[in-house]
Structure formats: C-alpha cells, structure tokens
C-alpha cells in the first residue's frame, strides 16, 4: 500500500517518493501472523501432526467420486485452489458480494453447498488436509460402524490438518459446512505411515541446488517464469534438481536480502515412455531453524481447541 501522501502526489501527477517499505520480516507480528494464517500454522486448530518416523511414506489417495446432493463435484479436489466447492451463490449472502450487476455469477442452488461427500477408494487412509475458508466438521462414514466425526475446522483456519488415530479403509468422508457458502479450495486425502520407497523401480537421483536465473533447459525456464509472475519478490526462491555427477552446482545469489521461507522445487523430469512417474522419494536434512512452539517448527499447538459453537 502506498501512503496517503504518495497517493496525494499521484493525483497531482508526481512520482511517489519515500514509499513505505514492505520488508516482510517474520519476526514481526504482522508478517508472522499473515504467514501462519496462509500456511495453517495459526491457532486454534491443531498444528500439522508430526511424522510417525524418520522414514515415512505419504501416499496420496486419489478421490474421483465426490457428490453434493446428486451433483458430481470436482472443484474441491482438482489441485486448483481457486476453484472451490461450493461455488458462488445466486444472491450470495457473503460480505461484499451483493452486486448491482445481475450476472450469472453463481453456480449454486439453495440445497447445495451444505454438505459434500468424498467417496474414497478401497485403500487405507489416515490424513486429510483442507485449504479454504469453510468451517464445519469432517465425518467418516462406513457401513457397520457409527459415523465418526474426527475433524473440526474453525472459522479462523485457512489450512487445516486432520489425522485419524487408526487408519480407515475406503468409506465416505463427509464435510458439513457450518455456513453454507464458505468454500473449500482443496481437500487432499493421504495415507501417512512408516515405510520407505519400493526397491526395483526405475529411478533418477537429483541433488537440490539453488539457481540464480541461469536456467538452461527451456522447460525449466518456462516453469520458473510462471513462478516469477505468480509470486512476489520475497517468495521466489527456487531450487532445482541437479544430476550431481555431470552438473556443477550453482550457488544461490538471492535476488533480495531476506526471502520468506517458501521454496519452489523444480525437477527436470526425464520422460521414460514405458514408465510413468509413480512417486518421489525426498531426503530432507535437519533444518537449522528455531522452534517456535515447544520443540517443533512449525508450531505444535498444545492449548485448548476452539470448537464450533463456542468459537
């Protein structure tokens, strides 16, 4: 935001001078809170649960059968945050959406947007991550057992994490929206368990190194350019997969002095026509970060959780 005096100058055709700096320093409460809001590290929902072991497998459970009443719905799990379940209502009650332009700016009728059912494939799962402003509860439905509400999203949470104590197998995951128009941008279901990558697969090994814009391969340059257009200057740190044997590691020259802890990883994938990409094995070194809450980073919340109704 420019200052009042910057804008007063602009209105007289003057180039703004002495504009307010926007150095986002996460030690400052304003920037830290905004960063935590965006990435789900704020309270009051539980922080992301810790991994069960040093060797952990995270299997994404593909969900292809999703229904709101009887409408097949893909927008909450299509990998695109901007497409949501539900969409925009005709005569929306959400703040600021009342509009004098009568446009077909809606895709919801009165019955939809209240509850959505994700019909899970017959495989184990124990972890759900949700990105969006919808608040309400997550329930696991399976025949021959009682419905089990295992997750509660609060109004304050944009990203939330929900872990089952005992893995489920298939069944239906239902989200009930407390306020019917609040949307889910993305919902992912995973099976997080102790294990390691299977032996015997065709694989490629990369070391991750920093790059400073000297991106030779066109495909990588194109992805990097997309990142440059999508994110502001302090969220542009990129690391790239390098074949450690035949490529020289390029040391990073930061474009700005204090980038945010947000890193884009670009892997130059080689196409093997007879093989598909089934998985990625990542070895992460210990991070030199200060724990922010207790002994963990990102914070693990140990206080009282806020529930619907008394939030």
């Amino acid at each position: 935001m420019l200052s009042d005096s910057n804008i007063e100058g602009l209105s007289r055709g003057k180039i703004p001078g002495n504009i307010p700096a926007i150095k986002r320093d996460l030690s400052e409460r304003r920037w830290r809170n905004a960063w935590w809001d965006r990435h789900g590290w704020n309270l009051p929902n539980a922080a992301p649960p810790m991994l069960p072991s040093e060797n952990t497998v995270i299997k994404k459970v593909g969900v292809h059968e999703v229904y709101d009443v009887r409408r097949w719905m893909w927008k909450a799990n299509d990998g695109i945050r901007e497409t949501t379940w539900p969409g925009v209502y005709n005569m929306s009650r959400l703040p600021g959406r009342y509009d004098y332009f009568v446009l077909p700016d809606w895709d919801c009728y009165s019955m939809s947007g209240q509850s959505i059912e994700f019909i899970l494939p017959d495989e184990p799962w124990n972890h759900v991550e949700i990105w969006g402003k919808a608040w309400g509860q997550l329930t696991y439905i399976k025949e021959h057992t009682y419905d089990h509400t295992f997750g509660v999203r609060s109004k304050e949470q944009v990203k939330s994490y929900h872990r089952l104590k005992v893995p489920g197998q298939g069944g239906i995951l239902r989200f009930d929206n407390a306020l019917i128009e609040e949307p889910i941008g993305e919902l992912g279901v995973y099976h997080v368990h102790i294990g390691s990558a299977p032996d015997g697969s065709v694989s490629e090994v990369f070391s991750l190194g920093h790059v400073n814009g000297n991106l030779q391969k066109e495909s990588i340059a194109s992805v990097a350019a997309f990142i440059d257009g999508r994110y502001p200057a302090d969220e542009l740190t990129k690391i790239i997969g390098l074949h450690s044997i035949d490529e020289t590691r390029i040391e990073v020259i930061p474009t700005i002095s204090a980038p945010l802890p947000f890193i884009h990883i670009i892997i130059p994938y080689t196409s093997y026509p007879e093989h598909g990409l089934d998985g990625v094995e990542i070895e992460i070194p210990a991070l030199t970060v200060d724990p922010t809450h207790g002994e963990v980073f990102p914070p693990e919340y140990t206080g009282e959780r806020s529930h619907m109704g008394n939030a």
Partner: protein
Amino acid sequence: MMPRICAFWKVVKITFSIVISLLYCEPCYGQLSPEPPAGLLAGQVTRSSVTPEPGLLFYLSGENKFTADYAAGGQDKPNFLTGLNIIPDGAIGSAFEADDNQLMSYWAPGNIFAQRGTLSFFWRSRYPVGPTPLPVFRVAFADHTSWDMVWLRIDYNGSGFDAFVTDVGLTRTRVSHYMDKFPTPEEWTHIAFSWDETEGVRLYINGKMAEKQSVTGKVYDTGLDQFGPHSRIISPYQVQSLYSFMRGG
C-alpha cells in the same frame, strides 16, 4: 434506454503488489496476442526487469501508444485492444478514449499481485452518467468457480464509486463511496485503490481517502490473469458459449 458509458482513462500505475483465465467484452474480436509464444505457459512473465521507481510494477502513460512505459512482468503490450483512441488532452499528457464497446486488457503475471498493491489512474466519463452502474476497472482471476471471474473491480455505482478485492473465501472486501455531485464529463477524477491482506482496502478520490475497510486474518493471495478498464470479464464457459453463437462466415 440503458446508458452506456465510454470513458477516457489515463495513467495506470500499479505498485507493490501478488497473481490466471480470460477477459472479454462485446464484441469479442480484437484479441491481439491471445496466447503466449510457443513453448511458454499461459500467465508467465516473459522477462523480468528492474523497476525505474521503487515498488513500481506497471505504468501506462499513453505516450508510447498502447505499450506500457514499464511492465515488471515484461508483457507490456495489450492482449486485447478494440475501440480505443489516443487523445492528446488527458489529465496529464495523453489519454485513452474508449468506445462504448471498447476492449482493452493487459497480462497480469508479474505486473500485479493479489497480496497487496495500489492501482492509480485518471478517469472521466465521455458523456453524463445516469443512475445505472458501470465497471470502470477490472482484474480477473486466473481460474475461479464464479462465472464473472472478477478478483478486483472499481465501478461507478450510480452516484459515486465502489471498489473491492476478493479473498480466498469468496467474500469481498468492498467499499462504497457516494458523492453528492458526481464529476461532469469535462472533469477528470483521480482514482486510487489500495489493498493489503494484512490491512484491508482504501479508496482515494482526487488524492484524498474517501473510504477504507480494515481486515484481519484475510488471504488475498491468488493467481491473476488480466486487467484493464471497463468491459466485462467472462468465464471459460461463457467464452465457449459466446463463440458458438456469434460465429459468422
């Protein structure tokens, strides 16, 4: 008879700001560079450049015709342009004169960001406004569930100006400003709109703050596609539908 307003507008400055889809307005011809060059992704920067002014992302004066004086994302040419003329007597230097069916938009990536920013321009209506609202400026989402795909809009609201940005929960941080006497077609109005997901929005008219709204816990960060004056953004569904029913031979 519904009045249609054409306007002159001048000097778009977008500073400090974060950021894909389709902008469109009737009639739907006039697309200059509909797709990025082969091999590039839609919505990417073509070259990053160093700003001549601190924080400046995009500057369009009209002195270089329709090419932006500066575009941080590198894409400085309009991707849609129909019904625009350049006139010498703007508020300061040249200005753009827009027909009722004008179409003018620029790529957003690198040139505007959703997290925070300021949009500043001079505007005047070409003939008197009536009671019917009309959009003055719009910025489109890269992808969205809504059919209008609007992320930011500044409107003539019937007696003043409305302005909003849309957050990730579909709600809009919106301000409405009503004026006892709306500027005549001869008077230029300077409009500036600032947004910041950690602060909220502010609307300035002729250099003075007219309205503000504060927010807490908002996330504006999202992919953006294109921006420009007036007109209407339509969704990919509507593009397909319109194309099917407007095609001649």
